């Protein structure tokens, strides 16, 4: 099956290359041309500067948003009073596109990195909160009762029962929010930035540098894919005790 898949992919690339030879519009580059431009860009300093600028916005935003999401989500899943006051507000604002707040954040926190990091953090907070919340709520009561019966303290129950049983859900939320952090980062950089991959693709677009457009596209694709792989590798380590679904 793997061989058939590789063959299908190769056939697609060959067809694309042949179509490019037969003549495609300027803005569609052939796979070989894209590869050539990408490897040429890898040898320059500019690409790494843009990648660094982008990651410097996306990763802190992801970490801050996820940390708040896990902490508040678990708290809302465990404490009824907090749940009643806080969760409805989160669920009410959940379908609101957070990116519209970017202009406001730019006014409050300046047009630099801070406003972008905070908008990414806000966007990442929601999926992690909701997953941690349901994860904590789905903790088996019988486990908590048994632990209470055996004299476990609240902190111990939280550490040894609630967190482990919410962890698979939390990782599902982290996966969504990691992908989201790259999307919001790219959007924010396309709207307003002086560096980063989103800025690079905008300037390339405006100056009709199609090669740079594809370099930015390939870079963000690789970053997104690598981040996702890294996260699922971490999850497999962290959840090694969990039975693998068949």
């Amino acid at each position, binding site marked *: 099956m793997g061989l058939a*898949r590789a063959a299908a992919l190769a056939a697609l690339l060959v067809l694309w290359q042949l179509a490019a030879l037969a003549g495609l*519009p300027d803005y569609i580059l052939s796979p070989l041309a894209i590869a050539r431009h990408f490897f040429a860009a890898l040898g320059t300093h500019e690409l790494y500067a843009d990648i660094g600028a982008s990651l410097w916005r996306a990763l802190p935003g992801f970490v801050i948003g996820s940390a708040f999401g896990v902490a508040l989500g678990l708290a809302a899943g465990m404490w009824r009073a907090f749940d009643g006051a806080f969760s409805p507000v989160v*669920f009410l604002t959940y379908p609101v*596109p957070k990116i519209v707040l970017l*202009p406001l954040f730019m006014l409050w926190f300046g047009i630099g990195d801070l406003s972008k990091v905070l908008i990414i953090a806000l966007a990442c907070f929601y999926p992690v909160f909701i997953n941690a919340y349901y994860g904590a709520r789905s903790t088996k009561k019988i486990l908590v009762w048994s632990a209470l019966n055996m004299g476990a303290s609240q902190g111990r129950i939280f550490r040894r029962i609630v967190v482990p049983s919410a962890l698979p859900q939390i990782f599902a939320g982290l996966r969504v929010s990691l992908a989201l952090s790259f999307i919001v980062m790219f959007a924010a950089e396309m*709207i307003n930035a002086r560096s980063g991959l989103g800025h690079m*693709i905008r300037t390339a677009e405006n100056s009709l540098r199609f090669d740079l457009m594809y370099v930015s596209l390939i870079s*963000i694709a690789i970053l997104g*894919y690598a981040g*996702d792989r890294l996260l699922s590798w971490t999850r497999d380590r962290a959840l090694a005790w969990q039975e693998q679904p068949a």
Partner: protein
Amino acid sequence: MRRAAPLILVLAILLAWEAVARSGHWNPLLFPSLSRIVRELIGFFGRPESLMEAWVSLQRAFAGFALAAIAGVTIGMLMGRSKWFAALLDPLFSGTYAVPKLALFPIFIFVFGIGSLSKVALVFLECLYPIVIVTSQGARGVSRVLLWSARNMGASGAATLRRVVIPAAAPFIFAGLRIALPIALIVVIITEMVSSADGLGYLVIYSLASLKTDRMLAVVVVIAALGWALDRALVMLRDRLVYWEKLETYYV
């Protein structure tokens, strides 16, 4: 008291905003008072032009979402019920899942033009993923006992699909649609903010550029209300169509 608690939190936030706006420490440009935002909000609904902008954004979101729903449910069903399709398409969807499709937007502008089509195409692409993935999970999880019973009672392939597979997958299909709908709105707003001369996203950027933050915040409120209302409408539709299974979520 229980139901009042979230209201108190929201009221506290609004009061804090008003207090900051009226304290005079900050430029009213940064914190326009609630009364000014409300005035702009009323103005928004009084102007046919601004309602047109909302209509333009909604059309784009709906067009992309509807296309993604049709294509996504079909592809998801095929992937869930056919090993061959799953083997072919699963690596494609899981491999490119984490890649921000937004990066394709500049290329889409060249391919589909700067108007609505490039935006609709991007909405379609971004919405397709959650719908396909969740639908295929649902179609794959149809209980074997039900399928065997249907076959045993002589149901044809089409009847099995209509009476067993689709109803069993329906809650999943709606779960996927519910993830995709806010994405449709987000993508429309982002693409309008990045490059457009119309739509609500453009209105946000335009109000900011003309330093009318109260107007900008009024548009933000409209977009937020739209996102919320679309989600409610979808949940109501779901409760009508999938009445046999109660929505699992707690508050929403």
